[in-house]
């Protein structure tokens, strides 16, 4: 019986999401914004996995189950999908940052702002 006190996974997920939102609001470096997306995604993933976790549960494989509680399979499926999507989003964002750097010679959003008003 592995009991986790104080709902630590949920607190950690909330902290990760908070850090990510802080980055979006106050950071202007484009690479940091990409990192913010990655952190936000990790926070959401952790939240989903923590939701599906049952203390002492076994892997939800129906053909060869030992006795006992299973962890929920659906949140794990959601998490897998989200990991794949986030990888592609981050790859796309990094490509764009690369192009912006090539055009502007800088990745500071304040300096490289062509579009105003």
């Amino acid at each position: 019986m592995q009991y986790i006190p104080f709902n630590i996974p949920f607190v950690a997920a909330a902290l990760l999401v908070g850090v990510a939102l802080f980055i979006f609001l106050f950071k202007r470096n484009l690479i940091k914004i990409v990192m913010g997306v990655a952190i936000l995604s990790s926070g959401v993933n952790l939240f989903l996995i923590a939701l599906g976790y049952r203390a002492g549960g076994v892997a939800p494989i129906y053909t060869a189950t030992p006795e006992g509680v299973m962890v929920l399979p659906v949140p794990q499926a959601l998490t897998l999908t989200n990991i794949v999507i986030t990888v592609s989003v981050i790859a796309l964002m990094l490509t764009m940052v690369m192009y912006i750097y090539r055009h502007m010679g800088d990745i500071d959003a304040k300096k490289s702002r062509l579009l105003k008003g």
Partner: protein
Amino acid sequence: MEYLTVHSPILIVAIPLLAAFIIPLLSRLGSKVRDTFNVSLLGFVTFLVAILAIDIYANGARIYTLGASVPELARPEGYMVPVRIMFQVDGISIFMGLTITVVALAALVYSLQFVKNETGQDRFYSLFMLLYVGMIGLVFTGDMFNLFVFLEILSIAGAGLASYRVNLADAVEGGFKYIVISAVSALLVLFAIGILYGQYNLLSIAALANTMQFNTLDMIALAMLAIAFVMKLAGVPLHMWAPDTYAVAPAGITPMIYMSSAASMYALYRVTFTLYGGQFDTMPIGWVVIILGVLSMFIGVMMAIYQTDIKRLMAYHAISQSGYMLLGVGVGLAVLTDPVALANYGRDAMNGGIFHIINNALYKGMLFLTAEAIFFRIGTRDLNKMGGLAHNMKWTTIFFIIGALAISGIPPFNGFASKLLIYESVFRFNPLLSIIAMFVSLVTLASFTKVFYSAFTGPEMPAYREVREVPKSMIIGMGIMVACIIFFSIFPGLVVDTIVAPATDALIDQASYINGVMGAAP
């Protein structure tokens, strides 16, 4: 025929999805083969959407369950809740599906000549199909998680297309803003889905709506979903990305990205009406939507006045027009639990707001296309450098005039029909809102008069003496939209009765959406 009708929901999504990955291979055979394939494929999908629409207007909502023995079987035998992936297409879904398909067809035909001289066309059309799949899947899906997946598909494809012209620095910046906003909003949606799943162990929208408890966690989830979708539809406090992205996206893509905003608006309505409808007092949410709408309307048009970049100007008008849709449907949402008010003016307000979605997709999309036609020929978007274009670009001028009159709500055009519905019904809800809406309409007219004078009228400018009319496929693309605008202008009543009223009913009637999946209420 029967087979096509039954399986059309999945075919509409699956065919373009498969095509997206075949197109790069087909491109090896030459651009003619690829273009013919693309247009005929989207034509076939349009046909499927049409037969699905006819079926839905005759027989009511249609459910398609993947992997079930019979597609209509939402719940496997012996289960209390739906566990399979499911499409649930009702009046409002098919309304959005029709709008998206018409815009996509026009945009595709327009793009044929527009991207002819660019590199990477095979990827362009691949992403185009993916963007279409994302939007159509978003409006057809019956479960929350696929809503997230399709939202991400349309975001990634849309961002890739917005920065298609990577040789322009501003294009990449516009695309980057779009992907940041999309990623954040999609992850917020996923977080909200996690909250709902943690409580009810359900992902199906209908089953969730059936068991909703309206406790604090649900309200937090609602706030997250609302923020995410408002961000994605460019409602005013969160609109900063829209002008940048709309302005830099290539021509055929701007209407498509605009439609993806409209699809997010559909998602907002689906969540507020269907998921959180029912016994819950929707007055506060309705007022939030109304205030968002009024802010979008007013600030959007005020920002548009002093723009000199023609596409940025139109992008701000797009934000302002979204405000009308939010206002109309918001009034309906506010009086949802009051049957008398709903019958008196709420239903009309919603009809107006929903009718405005398709009208706006047509004329706003067409105006974006004309703006890009000008850019295609003279290479600038700056209004101060334009002038006298009416001498050489006659078709574009005529299309622009029609679009400008329609967006300003001048009778007899279709913009007038939907705006009149909104004015009349909103006036009975709160006169002040109606007056603001009329004022915004006037300012819109003023702004488009400015564009018309600076771009098209005046003597022929020496620099543009050699400018010719745009190629034929671009004229046909705009022509498709103009034909729809004229049809809608002549028969507004017919259109409202056949396609808009079922959409409104589908939003209001939460019970039938739930019963379609869960069986008749006990």
